[in-house]
């Protein structure tokens, strides 16, 4: 675990920049992480990011891309437009939760 300064605050992150302590997160940090990935957050992005974060905080696991597509209110195709290449991974990173354990 390393420390990264973002939005003028020290954050505990893993090697890929995923926050390790979700409580260190706020909207300003989300916007800074998104900017680093070349994304300007719109209302549609926020629907996904909030869903991602709420699911993680209530169940302890991040939803997969398929669950996002079925339950977040944003279809899979649009997810890929909003978060190019890896929507679940990117939305988790912006939402300030650890990297989803999807792939082995």
């Amino acid at each position, binding site marked *: 675990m390393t420390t990264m300064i973002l939005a003028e605050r020290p954050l505990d992150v893993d090697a890929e920049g995923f926050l390790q302590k979700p409580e260190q997160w706020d909207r300003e940090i989300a916007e800074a992480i998104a900017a680093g990935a070349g994304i300007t957050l719109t209302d549609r992005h926020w629907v996904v990011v909030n869903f991602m974060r709420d699911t993680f905080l209530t169940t302890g696991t991040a939803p997969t891309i398929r669950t996002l597509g079925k339950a977040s209110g944003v279809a899979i195709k649009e997810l890929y437009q909003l978060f190019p*290449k890896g929507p679940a991974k990117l939305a988790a990173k912006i939402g300030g939760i650890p990297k989803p354990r999807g792939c082995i």
Partner: protein
Amino acid sequence: MKNILILGSGTAGTIMANRLHRLYRRDVAQGTVRITVVDQDTTHVYQPGLLFIPFGVYQERDVLRPRRRQVAEDVRYIQSAIRSLDATSDTVVLENGDRLSYDVCILATGAHLAPEETEGLLGDEWQKSIFDFYTIEGATALAARLQSWPGGKLVINVVENPIKCPVAPLEFAFLADWFFTKRGIRDKVEITYATPLDGAFTKPLAAKRLGHLLQEKGINLVTEFNAGSVDTEGKRLVSWDEREVPYDILVSIPLHKGASFIAGTPGLGNDMNFVLTDPRTLQAQLKPNLFAIGDATDVPASKAGSVAHFEAEILTDNVRRFLAGEPLEPAFDGHVNCFIETGFDKALLIDFNYEVEPLPGKFPIPVIGPMTLMEESRPNHLGKLAFKWVYWNLLLPGYDIPGIPPQMSMRGKQLVTAAESAA
């Protein structure tokens, strides 16, 4: 009497039944312990052998045996689908409504293919130009097709991880290169490997070596490709971000899911129906008397027979501890051991766990081997072929494999510097 209930009689369930039977042999004979196994069908498939069927190396008869005969006679065996599991009353309900109560329940219900989750996969072209090789039906249909195929574009696609045996799709690509070379039409076949990962494999060092092998064999690699749909008329595989891969034959590794009844028990599984499981003790998160093993779990280890075998030794001891009221041992380290068939009578071997990625070296004895890690060799290939005998005669009956303990060993492995690994 203590009731131990095992759901599923595949690799993991069969090994658990036989190991627990050996541990409690006397108690079973005296009627103080009862071991019950439930499975929905009658045929045990040697799944590592399915890879060889499309290329005519193995036939159907090489990989199929009756399930019941792999399980010790004193174990009660019930053939039935499972309707539900009620964790509150410690009861499993079978298809016909019969109820089985348990003191300990082991979920060994595996993973199955869900091609219906990808638009266009399951349709008129299924098993005509679109195939899987993870089922006996798919593998044999593909064998018939490849035998007489005049050539064209062969595309291998992993829809989404996790999948069973994550190296099998790569092995399929390597063997296809060998098969078409042997048939004398390699120059008429374009092989493409399309994966959602950002490299050939999940672990960096292995991804690098396997990526080189793909290149050497003239196999195209398409990365970060998340298949969204198949256009069966235009014969194109289309990703969610609208990239296209044209094919004449599509070999798909569809989305995998855990058993569907798991979704009916709140808190038991994740959104793909894999059981939420402690990665060290193999106890389910939902309740202390529930355990999970093999492909059925959500632990971050490969879904592979070797993992089920290593887990079984640890889980047998933890079931004993649980029934004796002792604390569980957090002993499982995520140990995986996989042969990777690379064609032309060679194979590669990888050995890793939760923390240590696959490293080069010798296995299982330092310097001597006889097998080499991370490098192609003929002894590795012979090891892979010999594994069929080991599977039926040592693994399923629940014996230890000499020289290969459940925890990964660093003996014989060469340490690779971070710089080398990143290069």
